[in-house]
């Protein structure tokens, strides 16, 4: 499955942010992912309102010193990982 730039990712049921030892983590069935700066910025925008394209644009501004195409690639890679873990629902394009 490929990721549509106009779709709106949202954390799937039973997937949520948590804290552990002063570290933000993404909790989900049978797994937990530790979140660093950029991955936390991505996950916080998976709210069903931001499109994938908007997440990319906002992070490109936030990390303006990084190569924009590299930022885009990293975001799409991270979203694909979350999708494979079944941690995201994608609101369809135009919804």
């Amino acid at each position, binding site marked *: 499955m490929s990721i549509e730039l106009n779709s709106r990712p949202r954390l799937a*049921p039973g997937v949520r942010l948590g804290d552990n030892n002063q570290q933000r983590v993404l909790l989900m*069935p049978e797994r937990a992912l530790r979140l660093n700066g950029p991955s936390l910025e991505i996950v916080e925008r998976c709210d069903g309102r931001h499109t994938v394209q908007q997440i990319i644009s906002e992070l490109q501004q936030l990390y303006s010193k990084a190569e924009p195409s590299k930022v885009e690639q990293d975001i799409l890679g991270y979203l694909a990982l979350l999708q*494979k873990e079944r941690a995201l629902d994608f609101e369809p394009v135009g919804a």
Partner: protein
Amino acid sequence: MTEPPSNPLALIAELTHRCPLHCVYCSNPLELQARSAELSTEEWSRVFREAAALGVLQADFTGGEPLTRPDILEIIRAARAAGLYVNLITSGLPLDESRLEALVQAGLDHFQLSFQGAQEETANEISGTKAHAHKLRVLEWLKHHRVAVTLNFVIHRRNIDQLPEMLSLAESSSATRVEFANVQYYGWAFANRDSLLPTRAQLTQSIDFLKEAQERLSGKIKIEYVVPDYYAKYPKPCMGGWGRKLMLITPNGDALPCHAARVIPGMSFENVKSRGLREIWEDSDAFQKFRGEVWMQEPCKTCDRRTQDFGGCRCQAFLLAGDPAATDPVCSLAPQRPRVDAILAALNDANSAGAGLVHHGGDPPSDVLLTKPTWLYRPNPS
């Protein structure tokens, strides 16, 4: 002394051994604990706070049937208040729609519904209870609640050919995950092993089927498949390594490194009523016993895979080789592997003609598959 151990990530809480089901492969020990010995709500609440302070992220509520605890809602709230992610592993009995609503309101994150098959007759035979039809109702109710849903199918010789039906059931539900876990041969399942272990042909066919399904459903449903390790080349990293990631608390508060650890002779377990969770995790004899590599024998001791599988399962080493420090006999490098091969040969050679027919679908199965087993059913504790 070695460096202090890493912190546990998950706490497996066996809230009770009471259960409306009598499954022939139950992971509970042969000796079940009575209701009167169970930890109280307050004691569990303290365990959750200590677990979170120790670095635990998730609590897995299991049993027995956790829903037989009248205080299950308070227990869920206490675990959430401690900061834990809450998994409930349940048969779906006893449950009605309003109680399900209350579980989700209390903060349940993940509902794992166990199934004994896709067909009512087989499922009820395995569980010794008429439970299947009710599970289907629970699946419908779950569609109206925002909670992660996993279907857990326990797989064995008599239902492994129903995988397509099981998957259809999952696809028609709100599940985001489905686990097809072959029975692990300890306790009740060890006693019933000769009626449960699938044939090699069945296993091969199941792997092919689920590999294709994983690709087709990627991003929709996450499929996990656990094969019976008797057929594996290398052992499973049991519990992610002894005393490395998981801690199990029995209904009466004993802290164990794994479900089956009680079978190993000479082990003693500390209880959360008399000692803190951190001390038990870091210092108790039971958790130290097979932690790290000091206890290992050859071939594990010098094997490159020892940091991946940690020598396999200690309980299985005891059950099959008679020595809990031996290399897990399912390992192809283990000196005791011939014992496992003999078990497989007894099943597959006697069954080879029939197994071939089963593999090619539809034809009448072999004698071994048709023979009605004499099950040893798990009873209910007082």
